[in-house]
């Protein structure tokens, strides 16, 4: 029953129709409070992304950001720019600082961190073997509480060679990497690289609900995770386009470069 209520609610909100909540149950009241916009970037100003919201992670991290990813992240205009109302992250095949590819990874760490809320983006994804875009979050205490202890919520992950499927996951102590709690969502008669789609979570005390467009496709609660629930504290947002890595595999000769990930907006509600 609880799942049913949430599904109906999400449909209302996404459709932009919210009716009176005075007579709603406790649960719906809790969700309804997630309609107050607290952060938004519509990417309406051309140039570099708004530095008050977005920082960068540069380079290759440790072991390709822990995943044997192949790209070198930069903050160059060639890899990340706001243009015509979109944040455009571009993965390029080019020899750069010892890597064969370049791309970008934006983070709100230290700039925007929040506990609970509705985190939503509207994106058009890239395509082709080896492309790995993601809209995700990490626990803000990651510097003192290393991954996976800090927790990770993957609102959207996608493999370029599976253009109809996205995944939503949580990682934490005892359920990280290949053992993450995860569910996929498949589009029927459509793809994620040919048009824009909405990816979001509804996150509250002891639950994370995952939705694509107007479809709620999963709810994860402490009962679902095989370890400690670490999602009752602030998280920050990441948007990146990785190339290669263990999750997706390397690009091959058929992968077309450059590849772009278009972000129409990022909105956070509480």
């Amino acid at each position, binding site marked *: 029953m609880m799942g049913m209520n949430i599904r109906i609610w999400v449909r209302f909100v996404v459709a932009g129709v919210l009716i009176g909540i005075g007579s709603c149950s406790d649960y719906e009241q809790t969700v309804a409070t997630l309609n107050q916009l607290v952060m938004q970037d519509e990417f309406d100003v051309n140039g570099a992304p708004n530095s008050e919201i977005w920082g960068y992670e540069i380079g290759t991290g440790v072991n390709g950001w822990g995943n044997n990813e192949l790209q070198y992240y930069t903050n160059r205009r060639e890899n990340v720019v706001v243009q015509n109302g979109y944040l455009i992250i571009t993965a390029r095949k080019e020899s750069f600082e010892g890597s064969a590819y370049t791309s970008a990874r934006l983070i709100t760490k230290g700039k925007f961190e929040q506990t609970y809320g509705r985190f939503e983006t509207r994106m058009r994804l890239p395509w082709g073997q080896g492309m790995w875009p993601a809209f995700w979050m990490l626990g803000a205490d990651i510097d003192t509480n290393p991954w996976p202890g800090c927790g990770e919520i993957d609102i959207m992950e996608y493999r370029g060679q*599976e253009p109809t499927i996205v995944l939503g996951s949580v990682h934490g102590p005892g359920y990280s990497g290949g053992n993450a709690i995860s569910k996929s969502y498949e589009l029927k*008669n459509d793809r994620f690289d040919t048009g824009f789609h909405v990816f979001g979570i509804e996150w509250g005390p002891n639950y994370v609900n995952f939705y694509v467009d107007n479809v709620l496709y999963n709810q994860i609660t402490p009962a679902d995770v095989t370890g400690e629930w670490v999602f009752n504290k602030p998280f920050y947002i990441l948007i990146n386009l990785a190339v290669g890595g263990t999750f997706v595999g390397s690009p091959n000769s058929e992968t077309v470069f450059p590849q772009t990930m278009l972000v129409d907006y990022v909105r956070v509600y509480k």
Partner: protein
Amino acid sequence: MKSIRLIYSRIALFGFIAFTLSNCERNLSEDVVFAKFSTNPTVFIDGFSAGLEYRPFDGSKLDAFAVDTEVKYRGTASMRFDVPYEGDPSGAFAGAIFPDYGNRDLTGYDALTFWAKASQSASINEIGFGNDFGENRYIVTVNNLRISTAWTKYIIPIPDPSKLVAEAGLFWFAEGPENGNGYSFWIDELKFERLGTVAQPRPAIFLGQNAVVDTYIGTPFSMTGLTQTFNLDNGVNQTVRAAPAYFTFKSTNNDVARVSEDGVVSIVARGTAVITATLAGVRAQGSVTVNSLGNFVSAPTPTRNPANVISVFSDAYTNIPVDFYNGFFAPFQTTLGGAVRIGNDNVIRYTQLNFVATEFKNPTVNLSQMTHFHVDIQIPEGIDAGDFIAIELGDFGPNNVFGGGDDSSGRVTIGSGSLTSNAWISLDIPLASFGLTSRNNMAQIFFISDATISTLLVDNMYFYR
């Protein structure tokens, strides 16, 4: 402006219809509505869809196709194709078209799909749709489609569905023996679908290369290597060969070269033009640069009495059977080209010449009564001091086949001092000059430049007395 005009025309049309109605006092006739063809997407589910026919190719094993009610992916029946073995008296291959000559409107679909399996792993030579035994205007082909012994779904995307308003060719295939052996394959649930996941079109002409063609006024050529590639929902990039009519061609200089809807390039003046194409608004990768060399001047027409001539290549005589004008001897030969038609004249045109052979061993030729070899050559490029053309004759000797220790060959070399550019050079060389030990089993004529000369035109190759 455009939309305003459209509105006026609608008002006018409405007024006309209303006027017609009030005067004639009868209902709108069906003539007012455009004729619509069936949008039935099915080709073969458990039997022939309405209007579908089976028409085998000439030379195909006639009973290569059967409706199989034992083996099927789903439902009650599938299509079974029995590919003959090499030497099968019932036919050399299996091939057929499945048309609906009532025509279908396929504009609402993006792919032909089916499930298939085979009695052994194999690759079907050609499979697709749009073959109607007529113009084949919108023919689409997948080459070497690999099938296995497990039922698998296959997707053949439509390069541009908007073109298929009245298509008769719903399915076709042609397949020969696999390693000499016959086998069977089954196709089921054959239908057009709107998958919504056929995406990221990447059309190409000349297989995506930037080609250069040197040619003459009045010598048309066809656009080749026309493909459309889509990314499918399983991540596969599926390429199909697409008919020229799917493309819109554009010439940078219509005064030099112009392209017809069916992809034939006509050369109308000396000069240069670059031809590119789009498919459904997407720029095709690849181009062809046409260098028109102007009017072609034919070689002098031979006047020798045919009774005294054994001709290998000439429009003036009846030629002996020739196996090839270019043997493409890998890996040392770079020479491209062969016999071409320029205007009304058949000539041989070689490019990237290092050496090349014309061979006529079925049968070999007895030159015992002949005294000379004649050939006209033209070199449409500058002559440098070290350039040469060597002509070599090859005789297979008494055993009449290549090798065996009795072959003889010899060459005559024409140095740069005897060569001129852009004009026919007529050569009459005594056969004695080739120093052959036998001339009774002649089988080969070589042209050799060792890459000193790249492009060579050849005409009127004959022996005479």
